[in-house]
């Protein structure tokens, strides 16, 4: 029994990381077991609490809208205090990398499709793009990036009725690239401020980029760029561009690959490490051992060998359908693959979806149901195991994508699950 902790958290995304930190705060020894890279790598990096509820109009104050949510919504189960605790913990972990904590009200930020999105917390690098601000805006796209067009983005923003002047322009990213060069290449160039040839002169990539944008600046007071402005040295890239341009610079969150998401993943990992949590990454949890309704260990598949990891308390934070915390197939239906927790779903899989792509999709609500301490419940509403809790997208009951509520659900459920797991592990120790 070599590998043993008080608490084991399965899953290393937003929910798993926050649950692990929360549990470690209670004094418990915690191990985070994570398999592949989390969905944060392709998430926008925006932290939403509640953006919409059934109508096309964005919600101004998410907390004021909580009462209208159904009883089986994770927010209704966890309660408003849990949402506030979750965001407080998040704010503490990310420090000045994020903004929005000064108010309960949603901020509106531009997306790379040119839409405007309500969100509760946003990376500081995106802050100057806030659409309630009336300063004129230039949106820059790059010819080397086919997935993003500055002109189109500006047109869409204008059509959305933003209260400022906005124009878009396509520039060349300084340096030469193959047609299918990766976004990571552009970022690395800025991150290291590598030398590039720009109009006959060799200069740093940041300066060259500013020079490329400058002629289009006009009277724009702020400049939006796709969110690829640096990785490890993102702050420096941001400051250098602002200095060269003499205007505020902001990032517009993109689809995958998403640097704001990756930076958040790095920040969370450092915070988890700093909280004294042990991390085992790279191998999946494939099963468990239990005695008298309590889990005694989870089984990690270490490249073909099954290794038990023992603990008193366990948190399941393996994600939803995209994160693979929930699986589905023709024979078994919809399942939670590790503990086989109950997931309510129609038996006929033709009832899993609505024919309208953006309709109310039943599959979007798939996930485990939990009690108020986040224990997954069986079909007869009893805890599956006394010492198993769930956090994040593995919990169902809401279409978090349509509502824009996934980050808030992850944070709220993570603090409840982490705190209960940590505290209950302490009582185990007293009894031993």
């Amino acid at each position, binding site marked *: 029994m070599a590998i043993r902790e008080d608490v084991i958290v399965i899953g290393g995304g937003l929910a798993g990381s926050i649950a692990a930190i929360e549990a470690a705060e209670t004094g418990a020894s915690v191990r985070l077991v994570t398999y592949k890279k989390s969905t944060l790598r392709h998430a926008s990096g925006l932290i939403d609490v509640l953006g919409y509820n059934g109508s096309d109009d964005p919600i101004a104050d998410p907390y004021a809208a909580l009462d209208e949510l159904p009883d089986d919504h994770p927010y209704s189960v966890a309660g408003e205090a849990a949402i506030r605790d979750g965001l407080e913990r998040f704010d503490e972990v990310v420090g000045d990398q994020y903004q929005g904590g000064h108010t309960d009200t949603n901020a509106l930020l531009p997306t790379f499709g040119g839409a405007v999105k309500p969100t509760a917390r946003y990376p500081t690098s995106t802050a100057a793009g806030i659409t309630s601000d009336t300063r004129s805006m230039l949106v820059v796209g790059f010819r080397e990036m086919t997935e993003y067009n500055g002109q189109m983005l500006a047109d869409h923003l204008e059509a959305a009725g933003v209260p400022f002047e906005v124009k878009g322009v396509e520039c060349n990213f300084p340096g030469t690239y193959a047609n299918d*060069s990766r976004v990571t290449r552009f970022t690395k160039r800025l991150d290291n401020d590598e030398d590039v040839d720009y109009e006959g002169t060799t200069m740093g990539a940041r300066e060259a980029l500013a020079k490329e944008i400058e002629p289009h600046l006009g009277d724009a007071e702020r400049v939006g760029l796709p969110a690829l402005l640096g990785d490890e040295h993102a702050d420096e890239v941001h400051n250098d561009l602002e200095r060269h341009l003499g205007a505020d610079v902001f990032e517009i969150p993109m689809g995958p690959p998403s640097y704001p998401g990756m930076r958040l993943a790095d920040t969370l990992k450092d915070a988890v490490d700093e909280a004294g949590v042990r991390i*085992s990454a790279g191998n999946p949890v494939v099963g468990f051992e239990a005695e008298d309704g309590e889990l005694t260990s989870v089984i990690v598949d270490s490249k073909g060998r099954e290794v038990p990891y023992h603990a008193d308390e366990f948190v399941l934070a393996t994600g939803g359908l995209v994160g693979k915390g929930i699986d589905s197939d023709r024979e078994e239906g919809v399942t939670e693959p590790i503990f086989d927790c109950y997931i309510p779903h129609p038996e006929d899989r033709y009832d899993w979806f609505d024919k309208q792509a953006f309709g109310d999709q039943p599959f979007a609500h798939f996930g485990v149901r939990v009690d108020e301490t986040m224990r997954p419940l069986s079909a007869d509403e009893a805890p599956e195991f006394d010492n198993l809790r769930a956090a994040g997208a593995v919990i169902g009951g809401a279409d978090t994508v349509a509502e824009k509520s996934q980050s808030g659900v992850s944070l709220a459920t993570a603090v409840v699950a982490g705190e209960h797991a940590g505290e209950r592990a302490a009582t185990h120790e007293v009894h031993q």
Partner: protein
Amino acid sequence: MSDAEQASDFDPTTQVDEFEPVDVFPSSEDMDLRPGADNCYKCTSCDTSCPVAEVDEDFPGPKFQGPEQWRLKRGEDVDIDDSILSCSNCMRCDDACPSSVPLSQMHNTARGEYVEEHMDHNSIEYLRNRMLSNYRSLASIGSKIPRISNFFLGLGITSTLGEKLMGITSEREMPEFAHETFRQWWKKRGGAQVSNPDKRVAYFHGCYSNFNTPEVGKAMVRVFESFGYEVMVPKQQCSGTPMFANGMLKDARREAEVNVRELGKAIENGADVIASCTSCSMALRQEYPELFDIEGIEDLSEHTYEAMEFLRIHEDLHSAIRESEVDPQSFAYHAPCHARNQGLDRQAVELFRELDGAQIEDVGESCSGISGTYGWKSEKYETSMKIGAEMFDHMEHAEGEVGMTECPTCAMQMNHGTGYEIRHPLELLEKAVAN
């Protein structure tokens, strides 16, 4: 842009009684990689984890090299793109992919096919790659006369000729051969000092700890004997790692056959197989069953462990370390990519944090850039050093001037970029628990 450009008559609302998979592609090859290719949902986690794509604007990244190229070459007139040779086989894409697409398996297969069918077998590049991947053969000759070999390898003219004639970078110093190989030491010592039919391990030392750093092998033996294990040292060949990376799959198979047979005998005698090099354990565990169909290959995969991993699982290594003490020393630890893929990237840091006297700092997630033989090639040297820059930077910022890693070529790169002396975790573990 969508993959499906043609309208389909598929109607999702029609009930289908029985599912009949449609065979879209001819399945003439040995390995069916289609399910793997289909699993890709283009999240780009692999591309953002690729250390080569980050520094080389011409490299199209693992998503192209894997699932996309696999689909492309279903067409009769599309050859494998030569950019496959720029993949360093660090296998980070495997570790990244949330959908378990077998990316490195796809790369290895494509590279093997490219080298076999499209590369001129009389070209200098082919000969150079063949020579680099068969390091073991060279080393076994060179180490017979270590002093003379080291003398010649250390000469400026040797490295100039290597660069000019073979395309092996003269920027790096050739690793020195030990005056006594691990196997010579093992024989002289009279083999195992502990006999225990209940606790047996077979040591896969690989080439480097045999010919170049026997102190790592000796540390492995002393540590395992201190925990009461009977250590066996079976006959063995190269694990195949450099061969996979160079597309020399026939060479790799030849070596694998010997390893599967000889280590298989040890497994029959109750032993588990222990490697000290994380690329060797990676090859035995993952690449062998993915690439070859040899009797006993699954069994070997299932019985192979990295050395400290084995002790963590089977012994109370945490307590043993917590109760020990070593002379004060700081280490800048780098986790090799292949260790990461086996879930071992945090192991040394986690264990040695609790060792009195030792200070250990993880220098971050970046790849060292050398990837075995990759960084030895003249045309890849610059890429290799660009990838390594982040690690060098973090090492400089870490306490002290001693590095630590499990991988011998990562160690070369760490030393090359910083001048630090580099230790293997087993050497520190030996000081802690086997003295």
